[in-house]
């Protein structure tokens, strides 16, 4: 059982490595897409089924497709012909390695079970007698549209602003 966990985490880490190390942006994008599917499997294993579905639909199926469109619209060949080893890569690698080792040590040996739990968000019980099972989706829906209704609407406004901004940045000058 633990072997499966380790395999999953290693798979996600390998996909992430593929994103930052591959020469071709298409390989990076596809590696990230597969990595997101791996993260969705991780969410499923942690019993966050609705978030796993949203991850597959929106992140892997929407955002990554958008990135693939972006890759197809620009010319990547000119960059591939130049030197690939960036002078900034080695200091960055050292910094990131030190950061990961130090923080990883601190975080791995922290006692999370002892940390105080936040005030439990009460997923209020659904109407009795409907006979429908209380699935993760239902409970998330009660919390999302109950306690977090205002942030939900604010996220809609944020997405509208992002769409307007993206269109404005990318439009042709007339």
């Amino acid at each position: 059982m633990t072997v499966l966990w380790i395999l999953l985490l290693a798979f996600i880490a390998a996909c992430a490595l593929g994103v930052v190390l591959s020469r071709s942006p298409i390989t990076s994008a596809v590696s990230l897409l597969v990595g997101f599917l791996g993260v969705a499997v991780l969410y499923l294993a942690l019993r966050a089924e609705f978030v796993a579905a949203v991850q597959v639909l929106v992140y892997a199926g929407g955002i990554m497709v958008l990135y693939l469109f972006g890759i197809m619209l620009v010319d990547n060949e000119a960059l591939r012909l130049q030197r690939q080893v960036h002078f900034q890569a080695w200091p960055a690698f050292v910094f990131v390695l030190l950061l990961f080792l130090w923080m990883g040590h601190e975080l791995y040996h922290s006692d999370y079970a002892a940390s105080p739990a936040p005030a439990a968000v009460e997923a209020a019980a659904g109407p009795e007698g409907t006979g429908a099972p209380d699935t993760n989706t239902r409970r998330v829906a009660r919390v999302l549209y109950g306690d977090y209704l205002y942030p939900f609407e604010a996220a809609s406004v944020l997405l509208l602003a992002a769409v307007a901004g993206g269109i404005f940045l990318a439009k042709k000058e007339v």
Partner: protein
Amino acid sequence: MGTSALVVLGLLLFCLGLFGVLARRNFIVVLLSIELIFAGAGVNFIAFSGLWRNLTGQVFTIFLIAVAAGEAAVGLGLLLALYRLRHTVNVDEAQEMKG
């Protein structure tokens, strides 16, 4: 799976994304590395949602995905604007503000 291991996975994704942002010259790969950072944060959220049996973490992961979508849209708009101006995706060539 222990919460510690999941937090370290989130840290690993964050660090790899940070390395991609710092070391890669292709603007698209920089954007993809930022998405990796988002993924690391999402894993962190779900890990603590499981630890505290609290659904807030999952709700905020949904918000995170929405914010990542908006950021992807704006980032790709920037990419197209940069490409139209300089006909390149090399971030080293966008240095009018340097010095």
